[in-house]
């Protein structure tokens, strides 16, 4: 065999970007399982349709850019974006919602900026926010927990099978009657509440669970487990997620006045409701759009934690992970500028 000239280093780890992305995708499974068990097949249909649209859009964009399609699809980055957006969308979202979201995520937020590695904003969150602002009705209609559906005794396809779920997602089957099938989320209730003590609120509405929201606490736990797995596999460092969760908890604790009607809810409620854990372990850890140094990631994560609480407590939206992440994406270059680590031999 002829000798070749290759520059050092000659050794290399077996880890690849594709395998990192695949690990992230796998780590979402516990959370997806909890959502599916709790809310029905709707999350799964979201994810399947998202993946189909994402890969098709990615292939189209790569082709337009005259680059090898197989090579870029294999990096699995579109797959992860699709899964994250699929999880974030309300279960049983219709196909055109998903397609629109994926178009903004893959084409606008990623490829128009130069493709993987060059996007200043988290693509899944760009897609989500575009949908939330454009289609508020569809985007705020979250499925009711299955156990409550049966309690309320709604008739018809209140618990669709997997096949029926795809029918609903493609709008071949009508969405079951809105009352009962969909329901306000715990964070919605918290947002709308202006009279009840937190404890009374929890008593009144069955959507609350032991710590966070019903089902939501299990989903959050699932994403926490997935996140800890990625941390263990050294896919990312603790700095971003932990500082976000700590900041959110601290602010929740400060403004939790024992549970008055003005209260923002306990730290546990905030940690185990809505997209908190998904955001902490899967969204803000997107390395492309976050700050680069560990110190920078602490600031980045804290900023997101603070913004989440501020918007949940005083803003117009019940949950705010996407807005918080996008706002801090803006700030990432500035944070990088001021948090360059001290190089060896520099004082």
């Amino acid at each position, binding site marked *: *065999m002829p*000798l*070749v*000239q*290759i*520059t*050092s*280093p*000659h*050794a*290399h*780890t077996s*880890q*690849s*970007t*594709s*395998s*990192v992305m695949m690990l992230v995708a796998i780590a979402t499974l516990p959370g997806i399982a909890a959502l599916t068990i709790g809310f029905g097949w709707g999350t799964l249909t979201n994810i399947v349709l998202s993946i189909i649209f994402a890969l098709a859009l990615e292939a189209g964009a790569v082709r337009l850019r005259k680059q090898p399609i197989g*090579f870029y699809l294999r*990096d699995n*980055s579109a797959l992860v974006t699709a899964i994250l957006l699929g999880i974030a969308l309300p279960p049983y979202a219709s196909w055109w919602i998903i397609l629109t979201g994926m178009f903004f995520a893959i084409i606008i937020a990623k490829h128009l900026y130069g*493709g*993987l*590695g*060059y996007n200043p904003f988290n693509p899944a969150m760009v897609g989500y926010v575009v949908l939330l602002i454009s289609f508020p009705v569809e985007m705020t209609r979250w499925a009711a927990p299955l156990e409550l559906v049966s309690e309320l005794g709604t008739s018809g396809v209140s618990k669709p099978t997997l096949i029926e779920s795809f029918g609903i997602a493609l709008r071949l089957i009508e969405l079951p009657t809105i009352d009962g099938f969909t329901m306000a989320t715990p964070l919605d209730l918290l947002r709308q509440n202006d009279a009840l003590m937190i404890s009374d609120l929890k008593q009144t509405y069955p959507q609350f669970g032991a710590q966070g929201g019903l089902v939501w606490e299990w989903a959050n736990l699932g994403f926490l487990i997935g996140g800890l797995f990625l941390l263990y596999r*050294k*896919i*990312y*460092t603790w700095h971003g997620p932990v500082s976000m969760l700590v900041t959110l908890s601290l602010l929740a604790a400060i403004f939790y006045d024992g549970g008055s009607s003005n209260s923002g809810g306990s730290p546990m409620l905030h940690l185990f409701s809505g997209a908190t854990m998904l955001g902490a372990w899967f969204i803000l850890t997107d*390395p*492309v759009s*976050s700050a*680069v*140094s*560990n110190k920078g990631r602490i600031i980045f994560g804290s900023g997101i934690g603070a913004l989440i609480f501020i918007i949940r407590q005083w803003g117009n939206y019940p949950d705010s992970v996407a807005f918080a992440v996008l706002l801090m994406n803006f700030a990432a270059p500035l944070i*990088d500028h001021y948090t*360059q*680590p*001290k*190089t*060896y*031999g*520099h*004082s």
Partner: protein
Amino acid sequence: MRKVWDIHGGIHPPENKTQSLEHAIEFAGIPAQLILPVSQHIGAAASPVVQVGDTVLKGQCIAEAVGAVSVPIHAPSSGTVTAIEDRPIAHPSGLDDLCIVIDTDGKDIWHQPPSTRDFTQLDKATLVELIRNHGIAGMGGAGFPTSIKLNMREPSNIKTLILNGTECEPYITSDHVLMREQSRKLAQGIAILAKLVQPEEILLGVEDNKIDVVAGLQDALKQHDFSALTGKPTSAEVITFPTKYPSGGEKQLIEILTGKQVPTGSLPASLGIACQNLGTAVAISDAVINDRPLISRITTVTGQAVAQPRNFEVLLGTPVEYLLARSGYNASSSSNRLVMGGPMMGFTLLDITMPVVKTTNCILAPTEAELPSPPPAQACIRCGLCAEACPASLLPQQLFWFAQGKELEKLEQHNIADCIECGACSYVCPSNIPLVQYYRASKAEIRQRDADMQQAEHAKVRFDARQERLDRLEAEKIAARQARQAKAAANKAAQAGQDPKAAAVAAALARVGAKKSALEAAQNASAPEQIPAATLATDIDDPVQRALAKRAKQEQAGAANPAAVLQRAVESAEARLEKARLKLTNAETVQDSNVDAFKLAVDKCQSKLNQARAALDAHDAT
């Protein structure tokens, strides 16, 4: 247990060291031909002192040091010099360089048989001289002449002498076997170093994957009374610390052992620390005690493409081909490259006739399965694994970004100069980006830009100096002319002067005038294009006044005799026409750009002459 510090980052690649550790060091033998590059060290190349056809003996100096930063080369075995020419040498550039080629005779006859010397009786200058004359350069990496590193000022400001037994690169075991089998010689070398640099403490740093050598080293060090050698209380310790790449980098080892960081841009000596390689210490022992020049070294030959990986005592100049043959290299196996050095920082060889030199610690012949060819690079997702791995606490992902955009200033702001090119970032990169290659290229671009800037600066200084000189000469010329004119005017006045007093006054006035105009000329000299106008301005007053006065006088005279006036006008017009024609012919012969202007002048003079003639004729007619 002494405290050791941790360094930032680092990686744990598979060590692959056991393969080559099974056997004792083996003498590689005398190859038929030895190829000795004259530049095996940093600094000026040695200058050959032998001719083609000369017979040389083992240990004979064949190339002598040139200048201070240089070391000589010695013949590793006896034989005949058959060529002094450019050959491929072991250098990342892959360029050829001057080599002395010796065809060995196999007799291995010493030029001067090794003797034994008591180094404790020698003074420092003699020791340094011995080290230099025996061709010793750092055997770890760069090959810096050791004598320069050891030629201390008095008194020595070195407090800590560090011996680098880290050998953190995978595969390489040459220092490991050296510590295992030559600890006595190593301790002697350390003793000589201690006498030279007079440290307060001697630290032999060893990674804990070589724990088997520690006891032997401690015993060997106990044989020497370091305090007696340095003349002050001096401790000597073997220190082990956790295995991590790149702990063996000089800066990293210093931080591990002392907790101090070498300030950027300075040498360890600024912290009172001197670092030496183990092979160098053994070579010093050989040189000083046994009078044996540096003619061989220990080199690891390993990798799955060789059947018997092991460590050889190799004569310098031995072709890599010879070593590979000795260790059962299978060229037809899927070996894709040959690396001189380790898998992290070594460079590939394109020619197996390249010789082993003073810095060759390893020849690595991996198979494709062992060290696969790099797959195509994917996009950087800024995952930050590289920043986690960087021992210099740099942000490799940012450096990569700036390197792609050729933002040299940003690269400098992010301290690219502090990158030690250890390869840890490339090793961990999940996108297979050849980061180190980008940094090398960027460093070269920065060097090139600096060189260009320096050159431009130099050119500007030269241009300014030339401009100043030209201006000065111009000013001097003008001043001289003014002075000449003034003198002539004064002389004229003095000759015409009826009154000597008035003449003296006129001369004085002329001198003042000349001085003044010379000053003005000098001031104007800085703006050369204004000079003609300025000189014109100083000249114009007088001639115009004079001409006016002359004409007034002529008119007065003309009133009395108009015909004579007209006659004179015709004559002067003729004279002017003649002059203008002369100027035109001159201009035409030299192809002056003002030819047209001269033609116009001739026409004008012609018409004036015609007018004057007409006027005269008219007058005559009346």
